């Protein structure tokens, strides 16, 4: 991992108009940097905007405000070849290995599609490249001419990874790549992702709700709540010296597979549910569930500020310790 920033998200907003209800601020003024060769974990509960952020980065959505910079260049300012180049360099792996593959195409077609679009590897080289990719993800060449329904969930996710890797990307947005898999298969796919990262110096934006897994693989972790990043720090700091009350609640809610540890743990159970993300007020989005909320929290929104080097928190009360 280097300190060179490969992808930067600056003050990004993505809002959706919900008919008759108002505006859903799915991503609200989010900024983050992805370093070369790094894994940045992006965690949060359903509806927090983590997937929307990932999709905005790969240009599935057009942001309402803010920028996405790749190698310092705004991706929405470039057209033609430069735009195509961006799509080659930033790929995505999807959550559902069943829905993300075309059921009517054999997998060599799905994997090779990107190669054709970008004019890479033609003729025999294209064929060899597909077989090489299959091998890289732990499948073999007999699999090339099979249809998605002939594969298990874990194998399909490998195919999704092969497809993303085909065009030699530098950044991969992984959107819950292992959530649909059984635990023993999750570990297989994670090992694959880690190995590929080392071999190809890939940078991952790893979107997940699985906080145990994300700790194991991430260099840094960003915690999202209702469209905003509430805390960002390197992985160990986030788990041992977290400052935001939501991070504390989230971490204490994860059960640890160890009865003795669980017996001794004190758990901070949040009351209530996630409030509706539509038409949020001016205050801190977490104020309605926060055990430490004061008047200031309901009135003004805390900014993400650097408390210690590399440790960012958006909380009025974090400074008080």
């Amino acid at each position: 991992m280097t300190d060179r920033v490969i992808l930067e998200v600056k003050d990004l907003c993505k809002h959706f108009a919900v008919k008759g209800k108002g505006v859903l601020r799915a991503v609200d003024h989010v900024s983050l940097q992805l370093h070369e060769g790094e894994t940045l974990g992006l965690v949060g509960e359903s509806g927090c905007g983590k997937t929307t952020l990932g999709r905005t980065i790969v240009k599935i959505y057009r942001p309402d405000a803010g920028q996405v910079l790749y190698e310092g260049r705004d991706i929405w300012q470039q057209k033609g070849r430069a735009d195509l180049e961006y799509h080659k360099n930033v790929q995505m792996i999807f959550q559902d290995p069943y829905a993300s593959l075309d059921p009517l195409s054999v997998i060599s077609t799905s994997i090779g599609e990107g190669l054709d679009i970008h004019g890479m590897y033609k003729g025999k080289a294209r064929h060899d490249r597909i077989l090489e990719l299959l091998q890289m993800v732990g499948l073999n060449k007999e699999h090339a001419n099979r249809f998605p329904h002939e594969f298990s969930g874990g194998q399909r996710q490998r195919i999704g990874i092969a497809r993303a890797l085909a065009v030699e990307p530098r950044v991969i947005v992984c959107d819950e790549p292992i959530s649909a898999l059984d635990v023993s298969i999750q570990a297989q796919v994670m090992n694959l992702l880690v190995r590929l990262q080392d071999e190809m110096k890939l940078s991952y934006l790893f979107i997940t709700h699985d906080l145990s897994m994300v700790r194991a693989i991430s260099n840094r972790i960003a915690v999202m709540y209702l469209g905003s990043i509430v805390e960002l720090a390197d992985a160990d700091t986030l788990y041992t010296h977290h400052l935001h009350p939501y991070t504390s609640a989230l971490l204490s809610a994860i059960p640890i597979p160890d009865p003795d540890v669980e017996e001794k743990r004190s758990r901070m159970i949040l009351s209530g549910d996630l409030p509706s993300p539509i038409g949020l007020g001016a205050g801190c989005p977490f104020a309605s569930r926060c055990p430490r909320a004061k008047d200031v929290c309901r009135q003004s929104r805390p900014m993400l500020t650097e408390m210690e080097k590399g440790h960012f928190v958006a909380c009025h009360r974090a400074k008080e310790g």
Partner: protein
Amino acid sequence: MQHVLDVRDLAVSFFTYAGEVQAVRGVSWYLDSHETIAIVGESGCGKSVTIQTVMGLLQSPPGRVKAGSVLFDGREMLGLPARELRQMQGNRMSMIFQDPLSYLNPTMRVGEQIAESYILHNHVSRAEARQKVLDMMRLISFPEPERNMYVYPHQLSGGQRQRIMVAMALICGPEVLFADEPTTALDVTIQAQIIELMNELKEKVHTSIVLITHDLGVVANMAQRIYVMYAGQIVERGSARDIFYRPRHPYTWGLLASVPRLDQKQRRNFTFIPGTPPDLLSPPKGCAFAARCPYAMAACASFDPEEAAFEGDGHYARCFLYHKGAEAMLQKAQKERGIEA
């Protein structure tokens, strides 16, 4: 002492166009009153089918119970006439499911849905049931029960819906509650609420719980005893501490090792179980785990292992490593796993 539930040698198959899928292949377990047991395993291991059969919810055809017995309070449940079965379902045993939205009726107010089984089983009027519904909603700490009993499921969040499911399941005070992946569809902060609720209610309404899950963290929080299932069989059983701290079956080792833990630091290499579970259309001869087992021996592929007993409270594993002829392999396994003999 008589067990509340006693399942013996249960075998269930599904007869499909492709052939007979042997989903459950001779499973025995029991449940005592006031305890929570967990049946743990990956998708397709037969844990849900086992529970559906016990509840009398097995769809037949294509499903068929091939052998075994299910004793509830000493009474045989398999082959019970539908009428008698219905008197038990929702009354003396009930179930909560993974996805509350697909099990709640979208066109009925939640209060009515909670009351439904109470009215049916206790022959009371709706007005009488109303008070009971309010009590239940208070018991599950549902805010503003007087108002919220009139809302529809779509107006509630996932966690609230799951609470409604819990209230529905417990209103008749069942002796047994089956919970099939009760928190899998929920966010972690909501999962923590539901786990706490179920542990609390178990004491308050004196029910016993059969928990089905693949999440070992949830198991560590709820269960006193654990059954580990693989390919339609129970491969290991014992107290929660036996299974977590003194696991004996190679599949249990693999399962425990492949789960990352929140209290562990970064690592670049995850232990995993190679391969995939066998196809139950044609289950392999011998131990079903042999093909994926790092310590498989010649015997494993041809003979079914017997259960080996261990110290502790009813701790058994179905594995040849503990056969007297397998000492060398057992030593190798224990050395590799860092287990003291």
